[in-house]
């Protein structure tokens, strides 16, 4: 496999984490423009873990994901009670706060005579873990997809368990769901925390892949794209946001479209929302598919 292909696949893999993260929040009925904040937090934390504190990669990824998850849970507590528009704008505000905070954040440690660490707007260079430990590109790709498959597997398993239906119920009709005895606040906070953790896992992988992270990488556009992937690909299944991610990369990499990618992508989202507000693989389509397969209606 040539290195270009490897790079494309790696990127698709890592951005998928972000898409899945935004998708989870869409399921509970919230549009979050700010999942990139958790992507960023974890990128920095895990990069600092390997570069400054000498942690092994798996531990660094763990720290990154956990810190993202905790941040997401804490932020969700005050924000999840906000209604639609207010929530979305609040997530955007928080993500910008993180980004602007990273522009200021400087923390450098001397290692082997050199200053290493996040340097505000200059960014965080020298995240050399995978090169120092002789990870090949293929091995790293396997790591990315290994983690992704675990996450997808977990989400699909839970999709078919009671928690999956509870999350969708919460998104469909919060009050009715409360009346079915479900603590809707708790469900939303847990979902947000889990979504943050997933984004975090992706962020940690991202930082080590690029060997450099900087605040300019985590702007609103990233978050806006992440949400679009779920909206385009479909909210009926975990494969929806993955489809959306794939479609965007196909447009990006296909030579004909690449220059006008956002124009077309943006246009598609807008038009799709008129006809298929829940995306391509929406609940209605999934229902028809299940009918065709005549799946028995128990989980």
């Amino acid at each position, binding site marked *: 496999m040539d290195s270009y292909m490897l790079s494309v696949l790696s990127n698709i893999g890592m951005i998928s984490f972000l898409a899945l993260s935004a998708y989870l929040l869409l399921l509970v009925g919230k549009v979050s423009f700010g999942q990139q904040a958790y992507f960023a937090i974890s990128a920095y934390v895990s990069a600092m873990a390997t570069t400054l504190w000498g942690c092994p990669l798996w531990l660094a990824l763990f720290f990154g994901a956990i810190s993202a998850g905790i941040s997401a849970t804490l932020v969700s507590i005050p924000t999840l009670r906000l209604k639609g528009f207010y929530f979305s704008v609040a997530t955007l505000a928080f993500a910008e706060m993180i980004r602007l905070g990273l522009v200021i954040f400087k923390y450098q440690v001397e290692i082997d005579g050199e200053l290493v660490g996040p340097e505000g707007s200059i960014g965080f260079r020298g995240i050399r873990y995978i090169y120092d430990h002789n990870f090949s590109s293929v091995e790293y790709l396997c790591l990315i997809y290994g983690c992704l498959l675990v996450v997808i597997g977990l989400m699909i398993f839970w999709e078919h368990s009671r928690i999956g239906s509870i999350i969708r119920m919460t998104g469909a009709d919060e009050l009715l769901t409360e009346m079915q005895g479900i603590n809707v606040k708790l469900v939303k906070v847990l979902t947000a925390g889990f979504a943050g953790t997933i984004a975090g896992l992706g962020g940690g992988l991202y930082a080590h892949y690029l060997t450099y992270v900087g605040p300019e990488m985590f702007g609103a556009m990233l978050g806006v794209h992440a949400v679009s992937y779920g909206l385009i690909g479909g909210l009926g299944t975990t494969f929806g946001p993955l489809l959306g991610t794939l479609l965007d990369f196909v447009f990006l990499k296909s030579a004909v479209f690449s220059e006008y990618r956002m124009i077309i992508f943006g246009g598609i989202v807008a038009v799709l929302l008129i006809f298929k507000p829940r995306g391509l693989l929406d609940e*209605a389509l999934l229902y028809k598919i299940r009918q065709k397969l005549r799946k028995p209606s128990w989980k």
Partner: protein
Amino acid sequence: MIHIENLNMYFGGIHAIENFSLKVNNGEIMGLIGPNGSGKTTLLNVITGIYQPQSGQISVQNKNITGLAPDQIAKFGIARTFQNIRLYPHMSVFDNVWVGQHVSKEVSWSDWFLPNVSKEKQCRQRVLHFLELTGLISRRDDLAESLSLVEQRRLELARALAHEPSFILIDEPTGGMSANETQDMLDLIDLTVRSKMTCIVIEHNMEVITHLCDQVCVVNFGKKVAEGSPDEVFRDPFVQEIYLGREE
């Protein structure tokens, strides 16, 4: 037993429920009647925690549930149906009933994340049982929104029953139904509810009230104006006046 004491509910300047007190004994079916806008549905909304009353107390089996959140109240074993039908339109009939089980005592927290195969099988049987009871078994894989009005009302009842509740609050179950459909619904409620749980039913159809209810409470402008057996209440001249008007 449901015990409501001196309940007051205001919406801004509107006194929707005024000094309302009611006792519903265990196993009793209490009818709640009154003109439109008299506060019957509001009362159900207060009991189930949608609204917080300004004063008064509601207790269930001597436990105070006033001001609790709807999910906490549901866990006390209180289920309800909605006057305007509130289902999950994009979920199947089966799933709409299945979700009622999330709160039943059979299902615990951990079952949400790690389904126990044999338990889920049992749960599935229970759901099918309720669907059979309400005559919806043949429609179990259809989307809830594709059902007729009558079927949707029965589905709401099935979902409420899936809670395995101790108390069931039914809001206008025969609204919009023909005479035959009403009779079927009446029989269904009688079959599923009588002697099994305590019930408050809001109705406008007096036939239903007479045949179904042990006791009746009449509400007008948020106040209780009469209480007693269906016979007593319907013979009360004041009740007749509220519904039929006075001869001048």
